[in-house]
């Protein structure tokens, strides 16, 4: 399953990555599966996505959660709590 992953704000700076296209190496039904794969990269990736960290998720440009389903071609974004307005 191919996905587009986006990172914003402090998370983008920390991971030094605004965007990447990934191929899931194990079957994944929801965002939690993607996060598990990212954490397996170790180092800063493991740290940034550790439980308890305040980051948010969107799936195809709508707010989501770790339980949100994902499918081929989806655009998943990770970012800190928003601070506009």
């Amino acid at each position, binding site marked *: 399953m191919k996905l587009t992953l*986006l990172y*914003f*704000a*402090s998370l983008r700076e920390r991971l030094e990555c605004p965007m990447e296209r990934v191929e899931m190496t194990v079957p994944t039904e929801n965002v939690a599966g993607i996060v598990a794969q990212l954490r397996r990269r170790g180092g800063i990736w493991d740290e940034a996505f550790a439980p308890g960290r305040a980051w948010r998720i969107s799936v195809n440009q709508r707010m989501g959660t770790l339980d949100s389903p994902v499918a081929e071609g989806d655009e998943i974004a990770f970012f800190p*709590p928003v*601070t*506009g*307005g």
Partner: protein
Amino acid sequence: MPRARVQAEAFDAGIEIAALGEGRRDVGAVATFIGYVRDRNDGTGVSRMTLEHYPGMTERALEDICDEALGRWDLLDLRVVHRVGVLEPGDPIVLVAVSSAHRGEAFAACEFVMDYLKTQAPFWKKEETSEGSRWVDARSSDDDAAARWEAGKAP
């Protein structure tokens, strides 16, 4: 002009407000909110601010918030404009303007849109201060403000 816009340029509050009444005589009330960059935040001087956003999702999130407001109140029209890029103290950041026949709806919907925008629209502020640059932390008071509008809790 779309009712929700994200732009680098400054906006003109007078023009946005006038657009809501343009050619109509059924508008009784327009409530408007404008947010500005302040020169201090959490006790530290702020010299500049950069607003990052998620192109595509931002516009969609603002449209969703407008739809939600139109569903909750008897409104005539509304406008949301949010700036991105580099801003300085005194610069306007965001404008929300809501028109309706009566003032109660306009006030409530305008405050609702701001509260939801603050927690749901993907914008992030980075401030330049005398101690370096820093990402602004989300405020729990903004979560509380948005939570007021959940079912059964409307103010």
